[in-house]
């Protein structure tokens, strides 16, 4: 889902807020739980440069990682703590297989300081983000069936990412050139504190059930490995069911 789609979705929800009310009420609930589909828009990529030992010498392997749109799910809940102020927690997980452009300087098997340049692409670099958001929100009924909330707070975002640890090459004697054959990967997992902010529109189907549509921006800068860090989070769109108490 593109960012444009997310904006349309949120805009549509806001427009629906102006539909005349019927018998339902959109008063602020005392508490709620939500289960929703979660879509994270494509994020900014990151780069990495490592120096594994190949043929008795340090290689240079540089990866330029892409971070694509990632689907997932989110669950959460909260309670009204004062007038229209609610405090909630939301946990979500999104994942996707990403790719990386790889360029490497692979040492020569016979000579020092005569690296061979290879380039290629590594795919299937699975990335998953597990985020826990604490959200303080201000909730306002905007029509009989519509409720709008705006809020934000701190987040803890963990990134599980397949990162390139070396490359494999095809080469034949005299080994003065080599071609990229593939990437050797390993799992890296790190978490970091971040922030979130977003809006949510709820359409009451029944007094205790509503459809919830949200747009949330979250961000954390996660030091994934000793040599690479990545921006986690981004613009999320959620759509799901809310049970109200």
């Amino acid at each position, binding site marked *: 889902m593109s960012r444009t789609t997310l904006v349309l979705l949120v805009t549509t929800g806001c427009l629906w807020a102006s539909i005349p009310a019927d018998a339902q009420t959109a008063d602020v609930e005392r508490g709620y739980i939500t289960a929703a589909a979660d879509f994270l828009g494509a994020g900014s990529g990151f780069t990495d440069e490592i120096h594994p030992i190949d*043929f*008795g010498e340090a290689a240079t392997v540089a990866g330029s990682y892409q971070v694509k749109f990632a689907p997932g799910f989110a669950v959460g809940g909260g309670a009204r703590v004062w007038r229209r102020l609610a405090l909630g927690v939301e946990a979500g997980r999104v994942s996707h297989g990403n790719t990386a452009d790889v360029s490497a300087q692979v040492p020569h*098997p*016979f000579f*020092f300081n005569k690296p061979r340049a290879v380039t290629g692409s590594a795919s299937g670099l699975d990335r998953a983000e597990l985020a826990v958001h604490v959200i303080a929100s201000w909730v306002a009924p905007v029509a009989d069936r519509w409720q709008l909330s705006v809020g934000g707070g701190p987040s803890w975002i963990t990134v599980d990412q397949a990162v390139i640890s070396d490359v494999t090459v095809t080469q034949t004697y005299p080994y003065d050139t080599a071609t990229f054959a593939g990437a050797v990967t390993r799992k890296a997992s790190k978490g970091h504190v971040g922030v979130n902010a977003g809006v949510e529109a709820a359409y009451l189907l029944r007094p205790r059930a509503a459809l919830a549509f949200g747009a949330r921006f979250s961000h954390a800068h996660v030091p994934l490995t000793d040599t690479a860090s990545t921006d986690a989070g981004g613009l999320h769109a959620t759509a799901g069911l809310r049970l109200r108490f």
Partner: protein
Amino acid sequence: MRRFIGIVLDVCSFAAVSAAAAALAQGHPVPLASTRSDLTALRAADGQIDQMLRSGDLRTRETVRDTLLPGRVHERIDQYVRGVRVVGGDITRQTAADGTVSIFGTIHDVGALSTTPGLSADAARTAIASAVSGEPSGAAPELVVLPLSDGYHLAYFGRALAGTDIVNAYVDANSGALLQQFSEFINEVGVGIGAYGDQKKLSVKASGGAFVADDGLRPAAITTYDMKGDLTHTLNVLNVVTPVVPSDVASDADNNWTDRTVVDAHVYAGWYYDYLSKRFSRNGLDNNNLRMPVIVHPVRIEDINRQPLSVLGQYYLNAFSCGTCGPNGRGAVVFGEGAPNGAYYPGIDVKPFSAALDVVAHELTHQVTSNTARLNGFTFSEAGALNEGFSDIFGVSTAFFFLPAGNGPMQASYFQGKDLTVPSGLFGRSMANPQSSGDPDHYSQRIIGFDPHYNSTILSHAFYLAIEGGTNRTSRLSVQGVGAANREQIEKVFFRTLTSLMPSSSTYALVRGATIQAARDLYGGGSAAERAVTQAWDAVGVQDRTVPTAAMLPNPSPSTTCSANLASPQWLIGMTVSAGNSNLRITQWTLDFYDHTGKQIEHDTLTPTNFAQFFGSCGPGSASLLAQTDACSAICLSLNGETSGSTQASFQAVDAAGQAVTFATARVALQR
């Protein structure tokens, strides 16, 4: 589980299959993976394994206690068909006090495969060795069932020693055809330190938890043998009396090589292979990736002061090549131990002879020569000097190919053997200025019958002049070289000459013509390369011969041992007959003897047959000589008891045009 039981029944029923069934059968593997997550399946599999163990279709290979979980036991169980092991048919079973915990493995339904082999185990052992071009090694081959992509084969599995590689192979149990093979070794790249403290990479193999100096990355097997100072074993290996054994191959425990002699020898031999490949597109010493045995540590350095001069000169302060020696009888190079830190020469550190890249390449070039021009000439011929000269040329050229130019250690220069000593350049020969190292820079300074290394600098100096240009110090003739940036041209001219144009009886005059022809072949008539080569030969005084000549080695020393049929004193005389610009056929020759007053005391007339008999030391071995080549002889003479006098040889011949020609040696004095 039902499928597993069915397969087990199939396996059990194989015993009833006739032994006459096919040696290749279709079938399929059945993977097993049962744990307590499915107790029913686990119990069924467990029961069937017990049943097969009782019937002999499965046999327990080992049972070990779990070192991490008390009470757990692990069995490894192999599958057999009528007593023949199935390769890859094996199971692991983990048990606890309360029963089986897990089962993993594969059982093969091998179909109607006969388990009666057509070959005996002894025949299979021979077939395995033959299939991998090696020698039988290890225990008797094992009869097995081998699953391959096309079905199940009855095969023998055994081991052979191929060079220094240990090869495991499966051959068909009926035909002996090779089905599969794999090396015990795994290619690796190690790191080591050379004699000058420089870090190098070594292409080696991993074997048995250690690393051996056997190059698995280059097309030719380059193996460095560490004789560990055992001179007797070294001699036996060189003389092909004793085969090398795997423990002779130089090894290192952690692939961080610390034996600097081994490091330099192994690395530089590989670089020489690379030089031949990259510069001349040549596949090793024989252009067919001949194995390259390199031998180091033939003696122990701590014994240097107890060795006779012969051993000192050959195995400490020397490196040498032998074209018919070594592990396969097809050549080996041996590098002397040196004499470090003044051990022999005060104030001089003589490095191990593998420390100098140009020396290693020099010795290996002798192997190229022995596989091409075969310039293993008699002492009195020029072929020996040419042999050494070409080795110097490509020794130095290899250094220029890999090292920066300069006069310091680990730098390329025109001083062959510069890095053998500290201070540098105390051994070896200068190609740029041969007189500076006491060697000739002009053909007129050659000494017939002298050390071929000495006479070789006429050739290597011509090579130098053709590249760098300059003025010959003796002739004062100048040469316009092609320039260092174009050294490749002259290297290719000389390499083409050596490997394609030169016969074994080559002379300086012939090489002149051959190099000029090679320059024309490669770069065209009138090219800079042809001009440079021609001027270089002019400068060092080597010209085409126009007329036939003959020469006796002057001032021969008297010998008392060269013939039992002659009166003493006797003289062993080196004599050379050189054809001019035409082929030559000797029709008659004479030997005249004079007493100390000059009076003739004997006149012997000899035939062409006699010529072929006497002049077999170099040349054609007949009375017919190729233009520009020599025939050589060492003739034992006597003055019938006279203690002084002189002798002279005269020759009658016809040239290619049928014209009669006569020529003679100078009269040579014979003094007791």
